[in-house]
Each structure stands twice: as structure tokens, then as C-alpha cells.
């Protein structure tokens, strides 16, 4: 009888390089390059620093929310009320503006309203244990509904001087305030999700909330904080969007929730929770922004763009499953 051959288990099952090359993020980089090159050939106006800078406005506001939404979806929850939070925040700022508030106060009120909306969602989901889909479908009509009650078919205009900086100002050369803020928030959320205990807890809850609870993670508190974060980032996005448009209507940011969720899912975050990365979301934001911009240069109507987004949302999940044979 020969002794059983010793099996050598390598330190790493896959070399880091081949793992990086096979990751979803690598696919996204290739897609981003492909979209960029296609656009550059399709339109002579694409390769222009100022045009490209304008194009970033297509995704910066949505991407800010997408960072928080990615963490929320990784934790196994979802927030469909983000676009309605934008409407309510914008309305609150409009009311404050009419009462004569200055720029700093407007920002405080905007962020505060966003946090308050997030806290309401968080209380209902984490505090009372209700399903987040239904809760946020409810608050989605509630928040925007309040906006409609206040404004009806009217609009707030005439925001004070200096308020336009958030949506229209440039920090340096072609780098707008929104783009810089987007980059800063990307780094902050990357650090929060990938470098802190809180981030680990988010993954743990998404993979198995019960196990997370038994390993000492305060599941309800983490969920509550995540809803606060989506509320806060929606507030930030609302300040930028209101500043960029210079006005508030109750229909502001309609359909943003779909684009934000699409961005997150396209970025490789599992809709069932438990996996995903901020880098993926950043890449997905760039891809969606460039595709929107490219379609715009080619005079493709916005609604055709939304068909494309819908197909993208389903295709991104369906194609890998088809290739794996389910």
C-alpha cells in the first residue's frame, strides 16, 4: 500500500493578477474604454475637455446617491424613495429661500431634510422590522406628495447669489464642483465600505443577517445608519441638482431611483446583497454618463435612452447567469 500522495495547497488559489483580470471591474473598464472609443469615432464633438466636463453632470448627482445605495443593497435592503427625497429636500430649501435664508442655512436645511427622510425610512425598516421595498415605495409617494402639496403646479425660483456654485461652479479649469465632490465622496465611501469595521458589518449583514446578529453586530443600528446615509447623500444630490437647475418643481428628479439602482447593479453589486464594490459603482457611473452623453450628441431622444437603461439593468444580471448556465 502506498501512502496517499500529499496534497499541496497553494497559498493563493488564484494569483492576484488573474483575479483582478477576471473581476467584474475589469469587464467594466473594458466596456468604458469601448464606449469612449466608439463615442470618439461617432461624434467629432466628443473629444473636447469642456464637452466631457459637461457630460459628467449626467451622472455626478446620481452617483453620489449610488455610493450609499450600493452599501444599502449590499446589506440586503433597498431605498426606492431617493428621488422623492430630492424633491422634498429641494422644496424645503425653496421654502427656506422664500423665508429669506442665506446660502449656508439653505445647505444646512437641505442636508437636515435629507437626514430626516433617511431617519424615517430607517426607523420604519430597522426600528419596526418592515420590508424596505414596501416602506420606501410608500415614502416615495409620501415625500414627493408633500412636495406636490406645497408647490402644486408652481415652482420655486430665484435662489440667492452664491447658491449656484454647487451645481454650476468650477473648482479648477474643467473640474466642476460636482465632479470634485463626486471624487471626494467616492474615496470616503470606498474607505467606509472597504477599510472599516462598519463596512465589514455591511457585508456580513447582507450575507447572513442572523449570523451577523449572533456574531455581535448591531444589525438594526447598521441598517438605520445606512438609511441615514442614503438620505444624506440624496440631500447632497438635491442641493447640487437644485443649484444646477436654479429652480424647484415637485417633478424634479423623477425616475432617478431607477437610474441609481441600475448604476449600482451595473457596478457589480448583487441585488440579493452580500457582494459588490465602490470601484464598480464609480466605473458604472462613468459608463452610464458617457453613454447618455454619446446618445445626446447623436440626437437620440431621452426615452430611447431609458429603454437602453432598462435593457442594461436586466441584461447586466441576465447575461452572466445565462453564461454560467444559471
Amino acid at each position, binding site marked *: 500500500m502506498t501512502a496517499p500522495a500529499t496534497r499541496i495547497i497553494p497559498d493563493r488559489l488564484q494569483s492576484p493578477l488573474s483575479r483582478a483580470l477576471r473581476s467584474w471591474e475589469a469587464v467594466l473598464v473594458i466596456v468604458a474604454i469601448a464606449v469612449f472609443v466608439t463615442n470618439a469615432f461617432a461624434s467629432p464633438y466628443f473629444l473636447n475637455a469642456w464637452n466631457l466636463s459637461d457630460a459628467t453632470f449626467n451622472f455626478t448627482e446620481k452617483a453620489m446617491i449610488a455610493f450609499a445605495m450600493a452599501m444599502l443593497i449590499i446589506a440586503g435592503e433597498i431605498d426606492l424613495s431617493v428621488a422623492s427625497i430630492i424633491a422634498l429636500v429641494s422644496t424645503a430649501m425653496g421654502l427656506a429661500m422664500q423665508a429669506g435664508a442665506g446660502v449656508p442655512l439653505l445647505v444646512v436645511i437641505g442636508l437636515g431634510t435629507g437626514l430626516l427622510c433617511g431617519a424615517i425610512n430607517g426607523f420604519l425598516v430597522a426600528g419596526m422590522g418592515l420590508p424596505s421595498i414596501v*416602506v420606501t415605495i410608500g415614502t416615495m*409617494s409620501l415625500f*414627493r406628495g408633500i412636495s406636490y402639496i406645497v408647490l402644486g403646479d408652481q415652482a420655486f425660483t430665484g435662489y440667492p447669489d452664491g447658491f449656484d456654485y454647487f451645481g454650476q461652479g468650477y473648482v479648477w479649469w474643467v473640474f466642476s464642483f460636482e465632479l470634485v465632490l463626486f471624487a471626494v465622496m467616492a474615496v470616503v465611501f470606498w474607505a467606509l465600505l472597504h477599510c472599516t469595521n462598519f463596512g465589514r458589518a455591511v457585508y456580513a449583514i447582507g450575507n447572513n443577517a442572523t449570523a451577523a446578529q449572533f456574531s455581535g453586530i448591531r444589525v438594526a443600528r447598521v441598517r438605520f445608519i445606512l438609511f441615514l446615509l442614503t438620505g444624506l447623500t440624496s440631500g447632497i444630490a438635491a442641493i447640487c441638482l437644485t443649484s444646477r437647475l436654479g429652480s424647484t418643481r415637485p417633478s424634479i428628479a423623477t425616475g432617478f431611483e431607477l437610474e441609481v439602482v441600475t448604476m449600482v447593479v451595473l457596478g457589480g453589486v448583487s441585488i440579493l446583497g452580500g457582494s459588490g464594490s465602490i470601484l464598480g459603482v464609480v466605473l458604472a457611473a462613468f459608463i452610464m454618463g458617457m453613454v447618455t452623453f454619446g446618445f445626446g450628441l447623436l440626437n437620440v431622444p431621452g426615452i430611447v435612452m*431609458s*429603454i437602453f437603461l432598462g435593457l442594461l439593468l436586466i441584461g447586466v*444580471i441576465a447575461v452572466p447567469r445565462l453564461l454560467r448556465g444559471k
Partner: protein
Amino acid sequence: MSILKQREALLALAILLLIGLVATRFPAFVAPGSLVNVFNDTSPLILLAIGQMIVILTKCIDLSVAANLALCGMVAALMNGAGVPLPLILVAAIALGAALGAVNGLLVWKLGIPSIVVTLGTMTIYRGVIFLMTNGAWVNAHQMTDDFKALPRAVILGLPVMSWVTLAAIALFTVLLTRTPLGRSFYAVGGNPHAAVYTGINVGRTQCLAFMISGGLAGLTGYLWVARYAVAYVDIADGFELSVVAACVIGGVAIAGGAGSIAGAVLGALFLGVINNALPVVGISPFWQMAISGSAIVVAVCFNAAQSRTSGRIILKPQEVAR
């Protein structure tokens, strides 16, 4: 007392209370003709809520119903313009709706994609297709034939055809859910999918059928909607899917699946319908509607959670959970 504990009875009471409250100040609101009007106005919501309720029973959600309605309505209007006879249009609208529902269902069944993602996607795709077909143009009243527009409004025995269709659907699906194996399997799939598999039920196929029912009803409602309001364009029934989900949640349909009744969904829809019809009568701006239905969803879902241990028909669940 025990009947008061039932969700349906409580909801019916709340609706009567609401009607009574309005009637104290505006007696004309409770005239039979006015109440028939309220029911007729709520008919599209009731029809869609029935379909949505069956989908939710199977642990799914269909956010594409309103877009499906708009697409089928537009196709019906275009077919009418092309001179297709009315019965054929009706069949085509229902078949197209069911086919669009089947697209949702197949993606959920064959690829295992969560229904909320699938229907968020198809919601924008279906609406986009209307734009591609029409380039954003409207189909107006003068482009529709008289019999096309007259059918939902035709009065038989004091009720418009639209209301009769709704009553027929309520009866049909009540029988389907309570008296047929398919109806039981909807409850079984939502109540406990694993147990359902062991009893020989194909979970994915059942979910797909639920989507087809929801789609078929949306197709039928699409024709009724376009014919009644005599106009078809890209944005008809925009955001209506939220009211439909609201009606189900208010009607005590558990979002986790497996519990709910047709009566609940119908009463939930009527609750919203009475509010919507009462607001202008009482003199409150229609801009309040959205916030009110939003609050109603939130309150109802809190209420559902508090009641979840005692309400609903949960079969194929462990005894201690079903109680």
C-alpha cells in the same frame, strides 16, 4: 367580535365610515348614481390590484403593470385606427398584456432574477416602446371609431360595461384562488416555496403564470382606459403601479407572499378610490392624493406587521407560525 378582527371587515368599515363622513357635509355623494360612479372610476385600479395581488402572493412584485397598460392601450388604439374589428382588438390587448407579463415571468422563472429588478427594467422598456411606435404622437378621440369608445361606457342594467367587467373579474379570480388547484398553488408558492416544491408544484412556472394573469388584466384595462378617456399617449397611467401596490398593501396582502385575498385587494383599491373621489367634493386640492396614498401605504404596512401573526390564509407553513 371575531369578524371585526378580520382585515376585510375592518377595511369595509373604514370605507363606509369615510363615505358617511363625506355624506354628512355633502349628501349628494351617497346618491346611488354617485356611488356607481366612484366604483366605475376605481375599476382600473381594482382590475390591476387583483393581478398584482396574485403576483405578490407568489413572493414577487410587478412594477411594470402601468407601463403594460399604456402599451396595450396604445396598441388597441392603433389597431382601431387600422380598422381591426373590436372583438379582435379586445383579444389582442389581453394577449399582448399576457405576453408582456410572460416576459417578466420568464426572466424571473428561467434566470432567477429578482422580480423587482426585472419589472423596474421592463417598466421603462414598455413605455419606451410606445414612444418608438408613435414617436410620441397622441391618438385622439377623433381618430377612434365610435364603437371603440362606446363599449366601456355602454350601460347595461344600470351599470357601465367597465363596472361589469370588473365585477366579472372579481368573481372569476375569487373562484380561481379559492376553488382551484392553481389558486391553492399561488398561496403555497408564497407561503413556503420549499414545501411547495416537495408537494410537486413548479414554483417558477406558478410565478410566471401569476405575471401572465397580471399582464393580461393590465392589457384588458389598457383597452378600457384608452377607450373610456378617448386618448392614448406615452404617459397614460404614469406612476399608477404605485397606487396598485398601495391598494394591495392596504388590503392586507402580505408583501412577503402567501397571505391575502381578492376581497382585501378590491377593498384596498376602493379605499383609495373613495378618497380620490371625495377629495374634490370636500374641496381639497388633488395635489394631496399622492401624499395621502403614500401615508396609507406606510400606515397599512405597519398595521400588516402588527397583524401578521393572526391574519391571512397561510397554508403549507409550520403550525406554530400559522397559528
